[in-house]
């Protein structure tokens, strides 16, 4: 884990508040996530270097709900992990507003405590809160994902979708500025998918500063987003507002279908 690069990046992007010389101050005020020329590659056992991300650049303005789209294996999750600081990029700089929180694709990796309540409260351990505050935050977060009846249930008795919601509640309880969400709707049925998206959307709407980056490959989720980034083969192909990305993908899809049919 290379926090040093992150700190360096954020230090460079946070000049002293009264400095007028930097033109970036205005930019960073409303940019929550900024990745520049991010490269990531792994070395296999045979010594071969396999590039996974090539020159990915993306900028996501603060207070918006963005989606990261792309086919399987194009590097969405890797990019998200780099943004979260779980992986460090081989090249390039990353800046993400703090505090940030990251929700894994598989809830079994995220939920670390034996009961629902304790798990949601786990992320709050770094703050110095009173028990009452913690309790109200936990119940609010669980309310947002519709799990308030499961406070004392042990995690192992929950279904995959319920675990997923507990994981999301853990992220919401921290009241972070940036939410990085990795294919949360994988384990959920259609009702719950919409429910979770709405829960995230609500938490964004309730405070101005929260930004969310949501990895998905379901196009119907795009209608809740403010903008989207489309990736293919480890490269950012396009980024923009949700409608134009949707059109772009539709065109590609129809071209592909034509190619198959011809």
């Amino acid at each position: 884990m290379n926090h040093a690069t992150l700190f360096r990046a954020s230090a460079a992007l946070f000049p002293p508040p009264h400095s007028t010389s930097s033109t970036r101050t205005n930019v960073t005020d409303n940019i929550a996530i900024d990745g520049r020329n991010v490269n990531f590659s792994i070395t296999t056992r045979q010594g071969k270097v396999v590039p996974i991300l090539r020159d990915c650049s993306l900028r996501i303005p603060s207070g918006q709900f963005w989606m990261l789209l792309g086919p399987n294996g194009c590097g969405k999750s890797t990019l998200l992990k780099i943004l979260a600081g779980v992986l460090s990029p081989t090249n390039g700089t990353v800046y993400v507003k703090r505090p940030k929180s990251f929700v894994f694709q598989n809830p079994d990796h995220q939920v670390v405590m034996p009961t629902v309540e304790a798990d949601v409260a786990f992320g709050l351990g770094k703050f110095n809160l009173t028990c009452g505050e913690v309790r109200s935050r936990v119940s609010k977060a669980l309310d947002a994902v519709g799990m308030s009846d499961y406070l004392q249930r042990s995690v192992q008795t929950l279904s995959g979708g319920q675990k997923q919601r507990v994981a999301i509640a853990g992220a919401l309880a921290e009241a972070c500025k940036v939410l990085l969400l990795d294919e949360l709707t994988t384990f959920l049925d259609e009702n719950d998918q919409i429910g979770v998206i709405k829960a995230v959307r609500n938490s964004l709407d309730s405070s101005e500063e929260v930004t969310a980056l949501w990895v998905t490959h379901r196009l119907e989720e795009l209608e809740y987003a403010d903008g989207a980034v489309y990736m293919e083969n480890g490269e950012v192909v396009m980024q923009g507002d949700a409608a134009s990305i949707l059109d772009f993908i539709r065109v590609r899809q129809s071209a592909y279908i034509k190619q198959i049919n011809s």
Partner: protein
Amino acid sequence: MIMNCTFPTVTFPAIPNFTTSTISACPKTLHVTSLKNPIPFLKPPNKINPTKLKLKISFRTRASVSDSNGGTGNWVKWIPTGAFSISADKVFRLISGATASPIYQFVSSPTTFLHSVDPRIKLVWLLALVVLPARSHIAMRFGLVIFLSFLSIWILPRHVWMDQLGRVSLLSGILFIMLGLGADGVTPLVQLRTPPPAMMGLPKLPASLGGYSYLIMKLGPLQFTRKGLSVASIAACLTFTVFQSASLCLTTTTPEQLAFALRWFMLPLTYIGVPVAEIVLTLMLSLRFITLVFDEVRNVALGIVSRRINWQHLTMMETIDIFVIYFRRIFKNIFIHADQISQAMIVRGFRGDSKTHKIYFLSDSSFGMADIVSLLCLVGVTGAALLSDYFLV
């Protein structure tokens, strides 16, 4: 040996299809002359009689059986019994169908009296129930067993207590019988070196006036003595109380509450440098991790079962190989899981110091009516157990 020797002597090896099919179909009505163009060397000599032919056929078929199996090379196939390969299948099926929570299961509803008792008091109760059966009168021991059974029946849902009590009583029943008859039951094979009193010219020991008898019951060659009763009752009652009180506690207390109680009792140890915060965090993490391990064990077994392996066709070594693969896979997956959980903890703000990372225990720890009642009961039971040793002799 015989088969291999006789095989080359069969008279018509050149066209085996013809010989085997016609002969096996109608060995008695073999008319080679009825063929349109009888090849001369195929023509059997007239002196062949059916019995001799039959003999040869039987040799032939036997030889073919041994041939088709590759001779002696595959003898290993015949060594493992069918039971072994079937049992491997059964083992995996059993594992894959096992319960997800074999150790504990917190029952959150219906909320009962025991749910509202403070976890610290429950821990003291557990300690008392371990110590008391060993240190009190036999009536007290059985009293504790009956008390625990009634408490379980009262507190737990019907199917839970039926299951728990059934298992624990079976275990302690077996222990009681084995120890009761085994502790002092069988007369020693080697005779005592002191000669019996009759040989020494001494009178026999008089029978007890109060009806005391060391021997309680005699079952054929076995005998049930007072020593046996004492050992058996201590072991069986201790087993019963330890298992039943623990499962009763676990079904009515969340893991956090238990961790909270443990931390409370361990807090004084911080003064002598015991890392209490770390121990409690580790306990909580492992309570979650245990269930992941069980899940993993089940899932990998399910994966093997769903491959529909034809166990009968596997040799013993191949079956063992699959078990080895199974265990390797489990360990690999568990380590991957541990790695990912540590990643998740870092992402969620844990920085490796359990003192600065607070763990909040949200359960209500105010002292209520239930706690007072429970404490009074504890004092009463302990007092009765201590007194029973003096008054009931």
